């Protein structure tokens, strides 16, 4: 009934799974209802080899999921567990020991309102989420408190996913034109740092404007906006 790439709506029955060996994996937006599989979210029906199916929908509110990278705002930096706002329905907790090089004596320097880039180590809908800034070997790998001088803004989740996709050339194109650091986190928060406030604002606006842009249109788009940026300042 529904082909890959079609728009599906809640209540649509999905029955044309590609015949393949092994189990069929149902991703987000699909739900088994007795013998049938129904869509529970509006979105685009997607398929990936060998047999994974899911629905790509447009959403703004973040729902935590294990092992995802998020940017959070520290709201309470006292005690053993920091409270961190990650944009979901409740605050996540982050132990002060889960920073690179942190020990009981060597407490990381974190203040209220600071930004942390962390991975969700526990994300269960029935329990409080927990964050960590280190991997299994105790290395930060880029995680931790974000340095001063950058800027963070919120984009819809699907745009953040698009930016993180390895095929998406937008950030590469912008990076060719100007020096910048950028983190696009799964919770729709994007952090950027570039040479000047002016450039940072321009890049932030460009990223937000790319929500409905095709990959092949991105090159022209970036060229265009970079031209404007430098013409304006000269």
């Amino acid at each position, binding site marked *: 009934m529904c082909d890959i790439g079609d*728009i599906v*709506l*809640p*209540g649509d029955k999905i029955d044309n799974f590609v015949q393949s060996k092994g189990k069929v994996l149902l991703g987000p*937006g699909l*739900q088994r*209802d007795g013998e049938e599989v*129904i869509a*529970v*979210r*509006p*979105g*685009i029906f997607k398929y990936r080899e060998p047999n994974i199916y899911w629905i790509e*929908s*447009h*959403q*703004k*509110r973040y*729902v935590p999921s294990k092992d995802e990278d998020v940017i959070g705002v520290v709201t309470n930096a006292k005690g053993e567990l920091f409270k961190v706002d990650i944009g*979901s*329905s*409740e605050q996540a907790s982050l132990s002060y020991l889960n920073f690179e090089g942190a020990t009981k004596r060597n407490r990381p320097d974190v203040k209220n309102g600071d930004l942390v880039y962390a991975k969700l180590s526990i994300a269960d*809908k*029935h329990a409080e989420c927990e964050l960590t800034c280190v991997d299994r070997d105790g290395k930060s790998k880029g995680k931790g408190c974000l340095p001063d001088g950058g800027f963070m803004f919120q984009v819809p989740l699907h745009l953040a996913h698009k930016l993180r996709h390895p095929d998406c050339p937008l950030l590469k194109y912008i990076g060719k034109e100007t020096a910048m650091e950028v983190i696009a986190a799964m919770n729709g928060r994007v952090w950027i740092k570039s040479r000047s406030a002016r450039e940072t604002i321009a890049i932030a606006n460009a990223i937000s404007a790319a929500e*409905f*842009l*095709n990959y092949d*249109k991105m090159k022209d788009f970036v060229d265009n906006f970079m031209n404007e940026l430098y013409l304006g300042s000269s």
Partner: protein
Amino acid sequence: MGICEFGVITKADGSARYITDKSDAICAVYGPIEVKLSKELIDRSSIEVQVYPKSGNTGPPERLVETIIRTTLDSVVLTKYYPRSAISVIVQLKHDFDLSCVLNSVCLALLDAAIPMKTMFSAISVSKSDLDNSCLNDSTMNFVLDRNYKVLTSYSNGIWKEDELKLALTFATKKAESIFEFYKSSIERKLLKEERS
């Protein structure tokens, strides 16, 4: 069928404005968000509904509509996905009150917020004059139908005979079909913006 506009309330997680020839309603959905301790449910999210008239304060009529919306949503929204959280639905009327317009705007806003739902629903008001051209009888019947045209909620006033009720239901079923078509085209327009750009 009306006009639908998604994302009017930019701060909300999902929103829709639905304009028909009778009414004009904006609905915003937040969810899943933090829940008040007193309303927290261990195994599912609690649904909060607020309806505001175009002017003045909320009164008993609004409370009634809130209840109708809540009971409808309880049977449609998959609240088990987000335990210990809240889904907040807020409706603001910009014109005269019309139950079907309000309910349809709620469904559109839920679709915009991508809240998981078992099925979509559409609300249809049938007045007796629609069925037999009698001008004197202003009894109305409101049906909320799911995608298989099963009745989720009904609310009526006036006197209805059994066969009239059946007639009204077939009338509503026909209308619901076109409303679902409208939902589909609206969502397609929203999601396929990228490909058309």
